[in-house]
């Protein structure tokens, strides 16, 4: 330790043990601590705490918002897909219905055509039958005519009666 006394101001031993200075140190320490406490608790700490909280809040807010938005996006996606599927199903139904209606029309048209054709066939059968029936009558007439001409062509005169009789004979045979 320093030894020689250097006057009142120099440290004879440990200045820490100079009790005369204690009130001064204690007083200024208390003032300092109060000032520090006020500065910290009124200004600095709330401000820093606010910044830290705001930062954490910003991050958690963003992440929470992102999650919520993601949820909404998924919902929107399902709704979108559902709407599309509904539209396709509706389209399918329309096609099926339209096809059924067309088929009905077609079937009706086919039926109509069938009856028409059938009617025509019947009519034609009748006409053929009529032709055949009238033919039976006209065969004799035509045959008589033709036979008379053939006979005349051979120059042999022949009365109509005998020709007619011959034709009638032949038609029977």
């Amino acid at each position, binding site marked *: 330790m320093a030894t020689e006394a250097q006057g009142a101001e*120099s440290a004879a031993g440990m200045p820490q043990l100079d009790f005369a200075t204690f009130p001064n140190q204690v007083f200024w320490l208390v003032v300092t601590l109060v000032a520090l406490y006020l500065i910290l608790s009124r200004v600095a700490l709330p401000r820093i705490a606010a910044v830290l909280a705001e*930062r954490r809040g*910003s*991050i958690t807010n*963003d*992440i929470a*918002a*992102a999650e919520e*938005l*993601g949820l*909404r*996006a998924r919902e*929107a996606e399902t*709704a*979108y897909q559902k*709407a*599309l599927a509904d*539209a396709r199903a*509706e*389209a*399918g139904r*329309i*096609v099926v219905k*339209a096809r059924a209606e*067309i088929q009905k*029309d*077609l079937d009706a*048209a*086919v039926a109509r*055509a069938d009856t*028409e*054709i059938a009617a*025509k*066939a019947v*009519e*034609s059968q009748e006409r*053929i039958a009529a*032709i*055949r029936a009238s*033919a039976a009558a*006209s*065969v004799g007439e*035509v*045959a*008589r005519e*033709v*036979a*008379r001409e*053939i*006979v005349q*062509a*051979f120059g*042999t005169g*022949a009365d109509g009666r*005998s*020709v007619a009789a011959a*034709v009638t*004979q*032949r*038609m029977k045979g």
Partner: protein
Amino acid sequence: MRAVLALLPAIAPGAAEAASGPFFSLSNTNFVVLVAFLLFVAVLVHFKVPGMLGGLLDRRAAQIRADLEGARALRDEAQALVATYARRSREVKDQADRIVARAREDARTAAEEAKEELRRSIARRLADAEDQIRAAEEAALREVRDRAIVVAVAAAGDVIARQMTPAAGAALIDRSITEIGQRLG
């Protein structure tokens, strides 16, 4: 720091006086301590300690910025996704309408085509049926005519045969008649 240091002899007169003699002297302990202190600071600067500390603080700021921006980006991304689906679901009505309209249109064209096709096929069938009927009628007429001729020829033959008694002429006549029959048929 440096400014405070420069002020020291001025603001701490008591301390400066505690060591006696001129300030810039090795006998002055305050001067010696000051030299050592400056040396210490120089060593710190030489080993880039202040730069390291500054870099540490800058990295912390960068990390915080990255965290904030990462979270913000996540949120923006989700927002954009929502916007996309909102737009799409607004469009989905149109899209659905278009799909249904196209389906209707397709069905209508298909119906028209089918009807056209059917009309053609019915026309064809009718035409076929009419052809058949006409053919049948013609066949019937021809049959009648053929029979009439056969009958006429035979009857004429009978009549002529009865009139031409001389047998000599008979063969000739027969042949002639056959000839005429052929010409007429």
